[in-house]
């Protein structure tokens, strides 16, 4: 109940103590809330509102502080509706004020207005109350100004620190994935957000793909595609402009169904993000910073200016990571090329020389036992040379994109390895890349696939070898040590065998099958060398 005997002087002194108390915490939103509450206490009001109108401080979003409203407005738009209603309904006896409204100035500009309603005495507010509110409001201005400055600089510093950290990461080697992860982790951290999600363009499809996430389980989200066109997430990537959604449930543009695996977000900020591919206008992605939970996000946090600068900085890191990755890959290929040349030019050359000399000795030798020993040594050398060539070929054909037969069959062997539990050996002999091209290439790949899949399904083999030899003919030979089958029927009731034969005959070739039950099988698929 009001203390009627308190003088204006005392009340003003109270106001100062109140302010001192209020100013302990310098977060702006917290300060505004405490200010309006304290003003209400001083003037004996049941509810109060501090409506911020300063566009400079406010930027895109209104701040709104209140107490005593039947429903706590979480959004300035709703808050203002409540305010209009309260002003309409405010009633008081003649001679007193139905409500108090005093301006709050910050740095010489109107920052907002403080409204107080429903005096607890039921008699309305007195001129004295107004005086106190006015004094309180004008003293608040300085504190708000300080808090604004403090908050802005603290946030600026966080983003600038993050940008600097990102830039520093350039000093060491960065992988793409590590750079992406750093970007989302820092963005989430700095914004005190629930999650951060980086989406980068998928060249061909017109989609954005989730490249990195922070704060949520990457399982199922990573690699997820979001259409670039027609989605809010795609907008920053399309337009290069940030999108801020303070309340997702109030913004029709935000459709959570587009990203069903993401957590329910209350507030999102989406920033344009270059993917570092270096060309302007293209390669733009989106960095999403999202907040879940019921607590409203400080509106300062949603000012996209600094996050945008952070994204710029991050894009440079990505670009650098890409360049580093390219350089590394190039170095690997150059290394492999060098190793391959060394093996061919030095090692095989020497082995060949040694083999030739042993061969000479063997032929000159009168001792048949000695000759036999030498012969087997020579066979060993030839095998070693063949092994070396196989190894080199493996090095050279380790290219995930190459459509050449050796690379395709190596990949096929990799896939079969997962199902078989061991990797089939693959060998190539002769100018396979050049000569097994066009139609022949298609058939060889199809037949090799068919043979391998039959073995995987039926053979129960423990060793499989696949060889492509190009001389006068192109020959594909697949040998396994499995259950074997009746060559007349084939392993799968004859379907696969018929296909293989048909493919061979189309090219003027033939298929030979050797197999005995439990004795393994050898299938040789041969077609003429030069496609006509």
């Amino acid at each position, binding site marked *: 109940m009001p203390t009627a005997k308190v003088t204006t002087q005392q009340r003003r002194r109270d106001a100062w103590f109140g302010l001192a108390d209020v100013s302990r915490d310098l977060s702006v939103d917290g300060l505004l809330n405490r200010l309006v509450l304290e003003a209400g206490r001083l003037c004996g009001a049941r509810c109060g509102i501090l409506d911020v109108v300063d566009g400079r401080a406010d930027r895109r979003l209104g701040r709104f502080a209140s107490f005593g409203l039947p429903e706590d407005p979480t959004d300035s738009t709703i808050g203002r509706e409540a305010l209009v209603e309260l002003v309409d309904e405010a009633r008081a006896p003649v001679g007193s004020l139905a409500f108090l409204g005093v301006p709050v100035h910050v740095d010489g500009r109107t920052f907002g207005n403080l409204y107080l309603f429903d005096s607890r005495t039921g008699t309305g507010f007195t001129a004295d109350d107004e005086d106190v509110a006015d004094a309180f409001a004008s003293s608040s201005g300085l504190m708000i100004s300080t808090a604004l400055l403090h908050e802005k600089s603290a946030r600026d510093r966080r983003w600038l620190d993050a940008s600097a950290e990102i830039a520093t990461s350039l000093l060491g080697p960065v992988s793409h994935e590590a750079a992406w992860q750093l970007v989302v982790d820092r963005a989430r951290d700095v914004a005190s957000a629930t999650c951060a999600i980086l989406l980068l363009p998928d060249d061909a499809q017109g989609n954005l793909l989730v490249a990195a996430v922070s704060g949520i389980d990457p399982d199922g989200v990573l690699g997820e595609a979001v259409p670039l066109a027609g989605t809010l997430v795609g907008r920053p990537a399309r337009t290069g402009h940030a999108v801020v959604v303070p309340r997702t449930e109030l913004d029709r543009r935000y459709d959570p169904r587009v990203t069903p695996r993401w957590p329910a977000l209350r507030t999102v900020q989406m920033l344009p993000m270059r993917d570092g591919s270096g060309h302007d206008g293209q390669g733009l992605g989106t960095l999403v910073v999202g907040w879940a939970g019921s607590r409203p996000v400080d509106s300062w946090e949603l000012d996209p200016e600094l996050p945008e600068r952070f994204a710029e900085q991050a894009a440079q890191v990505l670009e650098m990571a890409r360049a580093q990755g390219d350089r590394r*890959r190039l170095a690997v290929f150059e290394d492999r090329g060098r190793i391959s040349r060394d093996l061919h030019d030095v090692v095989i050359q020497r082995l060949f020389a040694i083999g030739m000399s042993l061969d000479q000795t063997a032929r000159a030798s009168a001792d048949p036992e000695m000759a036999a020993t030498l012969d087997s040594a020579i066979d060993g050398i030839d095998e070693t040379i063949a092994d070396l060539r196989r190894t080199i070929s493996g090095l050279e054909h380790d290219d995930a994109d190459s459509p050449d037969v050796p690379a395709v069959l190596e990949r096929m062997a990799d896939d079969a390895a997962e199902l078989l539990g061991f990797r089939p050996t693959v060998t190539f002999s002769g100018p396979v890349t050049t000569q097994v091209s066009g139609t022949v290439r298609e058939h060889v790949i199809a037949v090799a696939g068919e043979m391998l899949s039959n073995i995987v399904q039926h053979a129960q083999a423990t060793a499989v070898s696949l060889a492509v030899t190009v001389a006068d003919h192109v020959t594909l030979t697949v040998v396994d040590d499995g259950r074997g089958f009746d060559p007349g029927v084939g392993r799968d009731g004859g379907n696969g065998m018929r296909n293989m034969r048909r493919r061979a005959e189309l090219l003027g070739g033939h298929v030979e099958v050797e197999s005995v039950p439990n004795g393994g099988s050898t299938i040789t698929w041969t077609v003429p*060398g030069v496609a006509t």
Partner: protein
Amino acid sequence: MTEPITVFLLDDHEIVRQGIKSLLDQNDDLTVIGEAGLAADALRQIPQLKPRVAVLDGRLPDGTGIEVCREVRSRHPGTAVLILTSYDDDEALFSAIMAGAAGYVLKQVRGNEIVESIRRVAAGESLLDPTITQKVLERIREGGPAADPLDKLTRQERRILEHIGQGLTNRQIAEEMHLAEKTIKNYVTQMLSKLGLQRRTQAAVLVTKRGGSLFPEH
């Protein structure tokens, strides 16, 4: 009996030369009339000895085997050349074509078809199938996703490549194009370095291009 086929051997490993020599000497219709460990010696001797067939190591310490071979063919077109190569892949074929050789023989002790190959090329046969040669040349022409446009073959170089594919010697190409033989030689050297670079970096360039996609491992 007809005159034996005269053979010249060029390989920097003496053991290899001896081995091949003893292998060939077992055949009455083949005779090794000279050998060298260095390209320069071979280039001096071949025009004097005029062998029917020269077996040249595709890789030599004093110059690429390809260039030596072209030189031999230019100075003495009557000598058919077989390239002795460590490569059992497209590289062997490429080298043989660029060298203007009649074929190539693999470096392996057993199952070596060197004797048969020498007989065939001595009889004027080419072991290189013209269709395959065309394919290889096509690959070179199209297959140049060179990183740098400067690495691409110029029009002049492409014309020379065409002639190489037809099996012309440097001298013949020079006459055909009204250029000095030395100029053609320079062109070939330059082309080989471009193509070598091209083949080496081809994979890397592909990778670099692919770098644009998001998940290269999938």
